[in-house]
């Protein structure tokens, strides 16, 4: 192959191939960004949902849970926890986590959320559960 295929040919294929796929990827990204509003129902993204996301992030929930399948695999999927459990269950669950954990069991920290913060978290999880995820997860168990 050395006679027919030189280093400079390999280099040109690298530049050409990379540039082509990069442009294709950017085009697909442009189209995705353009159609995303119909799929993420952003018209329902309220201040409260944004506050809920902020709580989700600053308590590092993703360090144990997955959301839409991404995160850690230590605790249940929460992308569909809203339809699975409902608002009241979620709030009570978070509110009454024992400070010292559950003996021998995987334990969730007590975050000392106010009622307002619990509502924010639920709003975020509700909004998330209504994103069009191509019918993932396969069933309600997540």
């Amino acid at each position, binding site marked *: 192959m050395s006679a027919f295929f030189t280093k400079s040919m390999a280099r040109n294929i690298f530049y050409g*191939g990379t540039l082509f796929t990069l442009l294709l990827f950017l085009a697909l990204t442009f189209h995705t960004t353009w159609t995303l509003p119909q799929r993420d129902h952003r018209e329902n993204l309220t201040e409260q949902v944004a506050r809920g996301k902020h709580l989700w992030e600053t308590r590092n929930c993703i360090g144990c849970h997955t959301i839409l399948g991404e995160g850690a695999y230590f605790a249940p999927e929460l992308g569909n926890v809203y339809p699975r459990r409902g608002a009241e269950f979620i709030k009570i669950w978070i509110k009454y986590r024992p400070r010292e954990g559950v003996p021998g069991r995987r334990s969730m920290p007590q975050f000392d959320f106010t009622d307002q913060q619990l509502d924010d978290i639920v709003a975020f999880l509700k909004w998330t559960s209504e994103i069009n995820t191509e019918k993932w997860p396969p069933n309600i168990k997540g």
Partner: protein
Amino acid sequence: MQLQYKSQAVAKPYFIAAIGLFVGQILFGLILGLQYVVGDLLFPAIPFNIARMVHTNLLIVWLLFGFMGAAYYLVPEETETELHSPLLAHLMFWIFLVAGALTIVGYLMVPYATLADMTGNNILATMGREFLEQPLLTKLGIVVVALAFLYNIGMTILKGRKTALSLILLTGLVGLAVLFLFAFYNPANLAKDKYFWWWVVHLWVEGVWELIMAAILGFVLLKITGVDREVIEKWLYVIITMALVTGIIGTGHHYYWIGAPGYWQWWGGIFSAMEPLPFFAMTVFCFNMVNRRRREHPNKPATLWALGTGVMAFLGAGVWGFLHTLAPVNYYTHGSQITAAHGHLAFFGAYVMVVLTIISYAMPMLRGREANPERAQVLEMWAFWLMTVSMVFITLFLTGAGILQVWLQRVIPDPQEFMTVQDQLALFYWLRWIAGAVFSTGLVVYLYSFFAKDKPQTAEVGAAQPAAS
């Protein structure tokens, strides 16, 4: 034995720090593995999410130390000139190390929400997303260090010989720095957040990091085999072409279920199904170059690590990635222990091993000899096998756990709750932990190999042994 260029010596602290942080990463891995079966272990002092953040962040930081050390070592030799500023490299080393250490201490000593408040997360919220958990200040520190590093490497390449190898390395490093800027973009819209989060995470490990990896492997193979540079660099171009052509649009295999349009199941599936190709090419490349070697390099472990990288990267990133990359499969496996299995073998096989390859090759030189004493080499090769084989077992056990998890939770007609399923996976998690303990033993042997000397050959054959008292 002298270094070809004095300034290559700045690589040494980078490699030492990398190994030190690697040890920390593994310690936290052992804690996490136990927490999977003893749920409340160390709770509430070190909850799982904190330990995991330390585990993954240490990995990223020590690999970055490894990449920077590799660049400082190989760029002077490639460009045939001294490093632009060894002082700047030393200064950045300390800044990066102190920033990294403070971040880890912050994770462990302060509640995460308090850490966020203290470090300006309310000014620009970037924290609390997987792998990008670092406080804003740390993220800014990473940018400063990366810019200073690129300036230093760039100026060196500018004034010296421009080889394809060093330009490929530079392209990878620039890509790494530029893509990290997406870590600062965090919209309130989770779908958008996730879409661009992958521009850091995926385009790093299945994109530009492959360029860095190819350049490091190419450099070590060039040195230990003595094969013609033209051949090696041609191979490198072929590998990185395949890496970027498949990997860039392969990002789409993360866009199946996060709100992006359904067509990503085709784009992501087809392109990411080809992602094993560059890794396979790397395997063939490594063996081909070693078989065509023109010299016998006295550093045997370095050759072993290089070949091991080729094989394990293909298995971990290539085969285990392909297993669950097609949308109909991923629909069931997404976010399960299958993902964890792939993550472990891919990171170890590709990036851990390539950093250990350059350390294995360069560290003896940095310590003034072409290769380590025989006994140190034997120990290092023992460490190679202990760590590599146990990582394969970790992966197999997690894969077993993953298959069972997917079956019980997502396939059978009456699917079970997450925790009900987890309790039934305990045996796999215990086996994984044992494999992790063997891995740690391998790491101890690895550390010890740096201090091992040949035993003086003074015992006489047939000499009387003193009686045991």
